């Protein structure tokens, strides 16, 4: 009763006040974009990278997917990100060097985009910190897509069909260079590969064949067979530790690798350890695509390690000499079987990752 009296007494003032506040709120806020549920297995760990100013949203990812496959983002409308990063090849292109809009080959081999959510420094030399910063490079590189971000803005605006998507993703229909790269980065964060036979093994849903099991033990150690130490570098279920190593490809370096970024002598010929997920699909191999097959890669680690001051200590004996793994034919077969068990056919056929103009 007392409450009611009080309400009556102050009721009108309060109601007016509330109406004003709610009206003001409705005016400035809108139903914001919906968070995108990034789902991944617990064994991947939560050391993921999402900048505070670019949360992953359904609308942002949908826009990013369109932009990833948008050829208008290249100078002569012939190339998109998807030209060099094809879903069916786990977002690589099968070439030793990729071909940009003007026909010039790239300096390095195109990289898989699987599980970039966990990567902090992008490219073979780790020179781009974050997916947003990374995307600017191919977009504006004079030979890859060859177009300034400002020209991309003008072309997308002229295309007419993007304003609604930018509004949905960022609450403003204005197309800006920053929003273009943010949306692309959001889409890339969703490219999670976690349904290979190896994943089903980790989830207890699949038994490795004896050969796969042996390869798994050679790779990670801890089994009845010897460890050949792949996991010292390609460690953990994501098959990478984000470190830079010289894995013995050369002793004289045509490409300085990490040293090109840091200027340090100890970084010459060091490259980022990359994921081996879907590795059977991403030939040719290494930063310069020098190996056409996984057998050649295994022959390298087995018999051809090049020495030199920056060769990883992991690949040396205690006296500091290169220590090739001397794999037997049987060990190579087993390792190949395990590497093939990293192929995730769900990932390469997932309709959420394909060109939206096609499906």
């Amino acid at each position, binding site marked *: 009763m007392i409450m009611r009296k009080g309400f009556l007494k102050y009721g009108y003032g309060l109601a007016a006040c509330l109406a004003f506040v709610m009206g003001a709120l409705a005016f400035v806020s809108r139903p914001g974009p919906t968070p995108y549920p990034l789902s991944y297995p617990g064994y991947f760990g939560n050391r993921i990278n999402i900048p505070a100013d670019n949360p992953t949203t359904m609308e942002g990812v949908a826009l990013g997917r369109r932009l990833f496959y948008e050829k208008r983002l290249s100078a002569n409308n012939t190339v998109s990100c998807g030209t060099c990063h094809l879903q069916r090849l786990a977002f690589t292109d099968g070439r030793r060097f990729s071909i940009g809009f003007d026909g010039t080959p790239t300096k390095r081999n195109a990289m898989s985009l699987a599980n970039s959510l966990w990567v902090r420094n992008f490219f073979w030399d*780790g020179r781009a910190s974050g997916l947003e910063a990374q995307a600017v490079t191919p977009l504006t590189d004079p030979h890859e897509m060859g177009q300034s971000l400002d020209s991309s803005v003008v072309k997308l605006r002229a295309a007419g069909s993007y304003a609604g998507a930018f509004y949905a993703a960022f609450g403003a229909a204005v197309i800006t260079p920053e929003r273009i790269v943010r949306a692309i980065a959001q889409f890339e964060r969703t490219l999670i590969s976690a349904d290979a036979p190896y994943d089903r093994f980790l989830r207890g849903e699949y038994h490795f064949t004896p050969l796969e099991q042996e390869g798994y033990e050679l790779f990670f150690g801890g089994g009845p067979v010897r460890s050949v130490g792949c996991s010292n570098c390609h460690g953990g279920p994501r098959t990478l530790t984000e470190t830079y*190593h010289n894995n013995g490809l050369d002793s004289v370096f045509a490409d*300085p690798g990490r*040293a090109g970024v840091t200027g340090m002598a*100890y*970084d010459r010929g060091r490259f980022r350890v990359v994921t081996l997920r879907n590795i059977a699909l991403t030939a040719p191999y290494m930063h310069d695509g020098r190996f056409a097959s996984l057998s050649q890669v295994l022959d390298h680690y087995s018999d051809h390690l090049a020495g030199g001051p920056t060769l990883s*200590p992991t690949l040396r004996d205690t006296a*500091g000499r290169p220590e090739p793994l001397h794999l037997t034919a049987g060990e190579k077969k087993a390792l190949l079987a395990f590497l093939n068990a990293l192929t995730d056919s769900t990932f390469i056929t997932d309709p959420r990752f394909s060109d939206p103009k096609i499906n």
Partner: protein
Amino acid sequence: MRMLVFAVALMLTTFAEAQTVKVTGEVTKPLTLSAADLAAMPRTTTVAKDKGGVEHSFSGVALRDIFKDAGVTTGRQLRGENLAKYVLVTCADNYQVVFSLAELDSSFTDRVVILADQMEGKPLPAGVGPFRIIVPGEKKPARNCFQVTGIAVKFAKD
């Protein structure tokens, strides 16, 4: 010709950049330690096994002595919220390992973890040096990391 100029420039920048260890984070005085700085600090020698199981003697500077210079909360100050501090060691290849601040402190343990710059009285070999961590008595040498470039003292914030 252009390639040559580029190569020379790269070599110059490479040699100009001497290797150092940066001590940062929850410190009152950030440090950038060179080989000469370490040589001038109190020296500690300890033993550790290499991957072949052979023991070697390593010398360098105890992390606790580095922390003293950098103004890290050690000894009597290492209580309360300061016990939620950890030390993140970063290496040139981007490898990282963590210690809790307490496990490096002389009021908690007699074990002395060092930033080593010599093995058997000689500079560390290429690929390992100039600076590495040595944790005496550790069963697995995975924290005896190579080519240390940074030591950051941080607060666990969760």
